[in-house]
């Protein structure tokens, strides 16, 4: 069994190739790049990555226009079939805009673009994305965004917390995110969105290899399921 992933490419994506290398080196798998105008995804995917960047120049709202790209209709269908989907940074924004994840990402309450290594706590390690971590483990990844401030209404937040959908929390909240949420998944547990970049923390030379554990977790999930 060889791990098979696809990385979406939108006009303005800038972490797409980082994601490809991160997944390839972490899993030894095969990664296809899929253009946003494509109307079909490769078959037999174990993972779809919605990468970071500035899709459509962040015009209107971050991720709003990308969420209506032809390929996103296929991503929604794949997610409904149970394929694992991860959205990182702009990818998280796109997943919220597409309705695959609840809530929205707003301007950081500092009004600043935050670009720095950041400490996270693994809040839920019983997921396909995080089974390689231990409960409450401290991990380091790099943050790089101006709109990472997660918001949702009180009822939605209660549901997210009650369902164990919070996967990563900031140890020190950098941007005003509700409940220190840095990463959250859907109720089914196969769609994860996160602002920090595991794709910028997959080898020790990058300052941290904690992100590789996420991709290795997905590999192990695929192996277990096969």
């Amino acid at each position: 069994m060889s791990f098979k992933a696809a990385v979406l490419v939108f006009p303005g994506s800038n972490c797409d190739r980082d994601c490809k290398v991160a997944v390839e080196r972490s899993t030894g798998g095969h990664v296809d790049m899929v253009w946003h105008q494509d109307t079909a995804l490769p078959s037999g995917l174990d993972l779809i990555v919605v990468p970071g960047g500035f899709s459509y120049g962040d015009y209107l709202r971050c991720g709003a226009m990308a969420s209506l790209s032809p390929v996103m209709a296929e991503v929604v269908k794949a997610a409904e079939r149970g394929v694992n989907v991860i959205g990182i940074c702009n990818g998280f924004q796109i997943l919220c805009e597409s309705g695959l994840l609840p809530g929205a990402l707003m301007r950081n309450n500092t009004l600043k673009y935050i670009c720095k290594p950041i400490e996270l706590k693994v809040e839920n390690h019983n997921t396909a994305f995080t089974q390689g971590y231990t409960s409450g483990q401290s991990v380091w990844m790099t943050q790089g965004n101006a709109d990472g401030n997660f918001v949702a209404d009180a009822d939605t937040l209660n549901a997210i917390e009650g369902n164990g959908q919070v996967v990563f929390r900031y140890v020190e909240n950098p941007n005003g995110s509700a409940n220190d949420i840095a990463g959250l998944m859907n109720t089914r547990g196969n769609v994860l969105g996160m602002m920090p970049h595991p794709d910028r923390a997959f080898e020790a030379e990058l300052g941290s290899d904690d992100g590789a554990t996420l991709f290795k977790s997905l590999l192990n999930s695929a192996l277990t399921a096969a």
Partner: protein
Amino acid sequence: MKAKVHVFLKPGVLDVQGKAVEGALNGLSTVQGWANVSHVRVGKVLEFDVAATTADEAKAQVKDMCDKLLANTVIESYTVEVA
């Protein structure tokens, strides 16, 4: 027909941009400000032409556009004018 859409953050959603503008209006360090300004909200206005036979038809279409793209109703509300 001409459509005009206003998009604003919902009441209660922190508008950090509005806060920053408010701070500037209240007075930056070297500029005499307007201390009487409060509750600044920054929104967007979109104007465009819609080909439609009636204003009601155009308005219904523009509302659909708002729900699907122009506004994120999780955090934003909108108003539509068609003339």
